[in-house]
């Protein structure tokens, strides 16, 4: 990472620009531009310049059964999330409800993705910030066993996805109504030893990350997450806005609005005009009552308490969810009974359907309008990172004053570390973040 200094001819005299051309260890391309005048922050713009790919537009005119394969390609890190929001929304239109062992299998597939995505972020993307390394690979030179542990946890998640979906990136088996193939009991049993190992490793992970040196920082957050009467949310639940409201998914668009800003290829999202936070931190806070006692116990032992309000604690929340997903996977495997059919027949009809599921990075909303032939007429997708974008900007606004006295390079590094707390997935919203701070000399 290189800090660059230079004078921009368009700038006022006595100002300078600090530009970091690439923020690393995030998924996607974007930039941060901060303008400081007379010691006060003027603008904070998180610019997402990942090229737009227009998924919502080219879904129009495709058949309903092509949707899971297409929307998976929005994000290589969380394809299952896209597939799940899509199949639930379309099933709502066709009056299909997936229950029992097929529902369990979807939950298991989703757990696999949480484990893979979270372990990647905790060990390879964010832990290097706390331990002072440029990457997980560099960290491995001094902490080989730690990095190996992280990679092995990640591999356990990938193994679930590969068994159920054929491969871990863009799995192929999810379809409207269920799956194209069901795993045999024995195949699932074969995963158990490794998942049990990973569960123990996840406990160690929580203990390890909870001891990191966290900067003190507690913005006043509105947390948004799904909440379900019986379980920690993955595929379904009502949308809860912390301390304020609780709405069915169908009403999402009445309260949450997307708007466009000139500097970004991702749409900003607000709830009743205010920015909000989605993702692991929001989820554990909203769902503290849904964490199984064994998981809660490991968390409580760290000395931290819920709600977690420091974004840097996101790494702890993410680790707690790795443990949860492993516990849940083992539970689901134990009670698995082979369903009678991989997927029931689908009766196509026209209508509008919406669904929201918990992607690793937060709630992911889909709405589809389908005609009587089963062809998509309209699609709307609201990914987690675009929902967090406004909140990341506000947090930077709060955080930057305390680092303005630092050198350009150090200030930039500090901003990058803040941004990484949210595990932004810019491929979803749209990946590199370029950081630019413009300020008076």
């Amino acid at each position, binding site marked *: *990472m*290189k800090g660059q200094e230079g004078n921009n001819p368009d700038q006022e005299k006595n100002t300078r620009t600090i530009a970091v051309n*690439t*923020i*690393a*260890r*995030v*998924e996607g391309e974007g930039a941060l531009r901060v303008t400081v005048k007379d010691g006060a922050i003027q603008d904070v713009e998180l610019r997402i310049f*990942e*090229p*737009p*790919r*227009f*998924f919502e*537009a*080219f879904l*129009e005119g*495709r*058949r309903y059964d*092509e949707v899971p*394969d*297409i929307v998976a*390609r*929005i*994000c*290589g*890190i969380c*394809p299952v999330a896209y597939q799940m929001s899509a199949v639930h929304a379309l099933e709502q239109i066709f009056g299909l409800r997936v229950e029992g062992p097929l529902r369990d299998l979807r939950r298991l597939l989703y757990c696999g993705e949480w484990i893979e995505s979270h372990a*990647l972020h905790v060990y*390879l993307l964010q832990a*290097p910030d706390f331990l002072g390394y*440029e*990457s*997980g*690979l*560099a960290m*491995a030179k001094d902490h*080989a066993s730690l*990095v*190996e542990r992280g*990679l092995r946890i*990640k*591999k356990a998640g*990938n193994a679930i996805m590969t068994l159920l*979906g*054929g*491969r871990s*990136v*863009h799995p*192929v*088996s999810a*379809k409207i109504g269920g799956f*194209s*193939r069901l795993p045999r009991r024995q195949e699932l049993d074969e995963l158990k030893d490794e998942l049990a190992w990973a569960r123990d490793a996840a406990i160690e992970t929580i203990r390890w990350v909870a001891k990191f040196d966290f900067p003190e920082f507690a913005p006043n957050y509105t947390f948004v997450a799904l909440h379900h009467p019986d379980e920690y949310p993955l595929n379904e639940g009502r949308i809860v806005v912390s301390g304020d409201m609780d709405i069915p998914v169908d009403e999402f668009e009445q309260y949450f609005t997307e708007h*466009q800003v000139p500097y970004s290829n991702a*749409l900003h999202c607000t709830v009743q005009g205010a920015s909000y936070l989605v993702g692991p931190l929001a989820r554990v806070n909203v769902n503290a009552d849904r964490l199984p006692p064994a998981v809660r116990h490991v968390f409580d032992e760290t000395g931290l308490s819920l709600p977690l309000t420091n974004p840097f604690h996101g790494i702890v929340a993410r680790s707690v969810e790795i443990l949860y997903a492993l516990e849940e996977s083992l539970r689901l495997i134990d009670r698995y009974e082979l369903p009678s059919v991989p997927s029931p027949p689908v009766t196509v009809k026209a209508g509008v359907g919406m669904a929201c599921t918990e992607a690793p990075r937060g709630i992911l909303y889909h709405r589809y309008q389908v005609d009587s032939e089963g062809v998509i007429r309209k699609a709307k997708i609201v990914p987690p990172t675009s929902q967090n974008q406004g909140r990341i900007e506000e947090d930077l606004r709060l955080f930057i004053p305390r680092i303005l006295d630092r050198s350009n390079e150090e200030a930039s590094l500090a901003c*990058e570390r803040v941004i990484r707390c949210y595990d932004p997935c810019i*491929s979803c919203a749209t*990946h*590199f973040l370029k950081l630019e701070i413009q300020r008076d000399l």
Partner: protein
Amino acid sequence: MSDQLVRCEEARRKPARPKLGVFKFASCDGCQLSILNLEEDLLLLGQVLDIAYFPEASSRMVAGPYDLALVEGSVTTAEDAQRIQSVREQAKVLMTIGACATAGGIQALRNWTDVELLKRTVYPSPQYIQSLYTSTPISGHVKVDMELWGCPIDKGQLLRVITDLLAGVQVRLSSDSLCLDCKRRGNVCVMVAKALPCMGPVTRTGCGAICPSMGRDCYGCFGPTDGALKGSGYPPNTASLANHFHGECGLIPVDVVRKFRGISGNAESFKREGDKWDMKK
């Protein structure tokens, strides 16, 4: 191929570890994730190669030249059309990874539509959005030394290519059709048994025949094969397959178009077949 080998050989003789650069264009990051999914092999790879530029994985960004540049994603903006030129200038061997970089990817579906209309569909203020009218493969802009197909790439195939390059061995990847691999695995043919419109007969092997193994039809994410005559450069017999989809699997012409216009829809032979059936709609 031979000048590329010479360059690898030069790279191999150098005392320093070969420098690897990983570059992203318009994509979902799934192929880069496939590198990170090498798990324990990833740590070994980091010892054998100098991972000099891989922003998704590391804050260390060493300037070129690079012995091997892996390029993910397609070119969809004017800025990226410039950037790929500079990647090419810095790369001894440039290898595309995945369907986007190799054929334009799913986002090449825009090539059949009005991009201004797309922008208006997705964005309230389309004037802020800078985007080219097409999504094009890397080979449409610069010379590409090697191509790895797949959406995503197969990590085993990637590892094999890298080790072959490092060993100075000629890289050979099969361009057989998926059917051959599917038969070897003993799968029941989903087209024969279930009349599913499987793209396997015209699709390049490499994924491990995942879709038929999972009880469904292949959807062509490894792109077209080189054809029945191995290595001949003849296109696959898409016409025969399309007729079969229409006549035996019951697909109406618009559905035949959808089959060919998917993840690898911009690859030449798939594009031609899709366009042909588009005329019949």
